[in-house]
């Protein structure tokens, strides 16, 4: 539904002729039912829950149906720093993921073109982390960044890190974890774009006396923009809602809580379902808004 917002109003030039409506409908039905059951209904109930108000009896975790928007105001004022932080971390992690992934994808998609076997192997390496659970990977980082780990001991021995300094529980560790965990989501779309890049354009640019920086800025980057856009969307959206990396049980601390952690706290610890729902709805709304602006700005509506 969210992505319908970006579909163009112009009819697609190669739209299939609407012949057998019934068959089309029958084919669409499972998908539509799925969407209705697992997206529309939950979304509606999320919104309904966010408007509930506390039971007059005062019992913990009891709410009655109402049209009460106060939860929205409450969560915004209560969790404003966490909301800002989520977007801040998401911007930072998306940026780092892009900076790391682009050269990587370029290397695999362009430089290794002449060696298909190595290209496929390297691509597999990018996806390889997916063979291991997201949580285990994050726990592994918790070990690697732990105070007395060989990594930190080494950094201390070369005086890059003070005796009382540490990584775990700091924004650094959280952004590190987020970046690491979402790099494949950035690399794969970039690779798809770069792999299709027509190198003759680059040659032509060179022939016209463009230096490498100009070639990159004027040819390579614009042509691979679709990959950049889908990569950044695929990382930014889930990172904003991520609550594993920033959790106190993983790489974060009280000082790194993100929106997801607050939804979790309100839902499981505080039994405050309207607030948890309102916060989720706000997260969805803000992301939708940001993504719309982003996609409109970059003129890539057709990509979605």
């Amino acid at each position, binding site marked *: 539904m969210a992505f319908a917002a970006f579909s163009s109003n112009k009819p697609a030039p190669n739209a299939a002729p609407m012949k057998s409506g019934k068959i089309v409908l029958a084919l669409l039905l499972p998908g539509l039912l799925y969407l209705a059951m697992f997206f529309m*209904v*939950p979304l509606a109930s999320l919104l309904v829950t966010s408007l509930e108000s506390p039971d007059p*009896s005062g019992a913990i975790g009891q709410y009655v149906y109402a049209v009460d928007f106060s939860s929205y105001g409450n969560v915004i004022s209560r969790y404003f720093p966490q909301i800002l932080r989520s977007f801040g971390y998401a911007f930072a992690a998306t940026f780092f993921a892009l900076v790391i992934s682009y050269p990587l994808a370029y290397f695999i998609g362009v430089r290794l073109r002449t060696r298909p076997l190595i290209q496929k192997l390297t691509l597999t390496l990018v996806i390889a982390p997916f063979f291991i659970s997201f949580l285990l990977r994050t726990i592994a980082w918790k070990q690697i960044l732990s105070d007395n780990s060989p990594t930190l001991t080494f950094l201390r021995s070369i005086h890059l890190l003070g005796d*009382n300094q540490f990584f775990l529980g700091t924004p650094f560790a959280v952004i590190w974890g987020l970046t690491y965990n979402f790099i494949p989501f950035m690399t794969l779309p970039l690779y798809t774009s770069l792999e299709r890049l027509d190198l003759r354009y680059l040659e032509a640019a060179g022939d016209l006396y463009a230096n490498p920086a100009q070639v990159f800025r004027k040819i390579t980057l614009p042509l691979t923009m679709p990959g950049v856009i889908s990569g950044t969307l695929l990382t930014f959206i*889930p990172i904003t809602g991520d609550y594993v990396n920033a959790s*106190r049980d993983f790489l974060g*601390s009280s000082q*790194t809580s993100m929106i997801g952690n*607050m939804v979790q706290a309100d839902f499981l610890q505080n039994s405050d379902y309207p607030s948890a*729902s309102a916060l989720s709805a706000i997260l969805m709304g803000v992301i939708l808004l940001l993504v719309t602006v982003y996609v409109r700005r970059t003129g890539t509506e057709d990509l979605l």
Partner: protein
Amino acid sequence: MTNSQDPILRDLMRLAKAPVTRRTVLAGAGMSAAAVTLAACSPGGAKHLSPVKDLSSSQHVVTWDDWPYYMDDSDNPQSPTIKGFQAASGIKVVYNTNVDDNNSYYARIKNQLGQGKDTGADTMCLTDWMAARLINSGLVQDFNYKLLPNVTKNLDPYYKGAAWSYDPDRKASLPWKGIIAGIGYHKENYKKVTGQDAPTSVADLFTNPALKGKVVVLSEMRDTIGVMMMADGIDISSFTADDFHNTLDKFTSYVKSGQVRGIKGNSYVDDLKNGDAVAGIVWAGDIVSTNNELGKDILGVVLPDSGSTYACDNFLIPMGSQHAANAEALINYYYEPEVAAMLALGGVFYVPPVKADLVKPLVAAKNSALASNELIFPTDLSKFHQFRPLSAKEDNEFSKAWSDAANGVV
């Protein structure tokens, strides 16, 4: 009470095994939204519930939801005590260690529980304050004491009376394990960091600059704030809201200043072991278990002079249990002194609710050091303190304030 890992984390572990695509992300969002709705759909007002029909005479099975680390010989798929019960009674035990946190366990079962339907468990073990909440809301049933002769005989009288105001006569709740909270520390690291052998007071944790960023506390509000309030000279059986907030404000300042880095469930043990924390407010039983597992005393426990909290995880039988009599047979079995001794000898280092003078000699016969361990068989239980019961309004207010402090919201 020993939450090794969040249930959410465990669910995530499972989810994480599925590959993530944009579509599954959307579906996941949908499903979590569905969970929110389901939880929110529970009936608003409390209605009077009564136990459902008991099928124990025809179905010889009992399902038991419990915390991890509470069963003897935990490496064994079936513990010796459970095997013993099954052999003696002919009742099959389905033992689940799926209680990691009172709140999230409750969030999971609350719909069925609130309607008096089967929650999937015939008995579950929850901490005092949660037991109080369920008893006050009429969600759990009274025991049939005719089936509990061992309880009548062997329950330590300490666990009855006014101190347990939510159920002074133990009509609907029976203690399963007693948990002491005190100061835990890593012996070698503590010495290295502070130059002292062991912390001596709660204030040591929060005021010693050498420990900055090296302190971990329990995410269980009643234990952490309880221990801290007592250190401030407050009687936790009768504190006021101001007392609570004053101590919580101090706690918040320690979190903000970075003195306290970790606020955790049972995973604080890992932090102490690997050096991410050097000392903190902990559950004594965990420390004894860890030392036992490692085969050496690397961690230590100090019970502060200002006072330690003591809480129980309690057997409860939900209204919707169809095997209440089987559950009672099970509880009765665990109130045998021999069985309580087997648990202690099998590596369960929490305080048994059975009269110590019945259990201790049995343990001493096989392991005298264990029998004289003050953290498992305290000679004087009255030196411990219980966090006073909270009204629903206070409970709501305090829990939120605590959650805000723990999440850095304030």
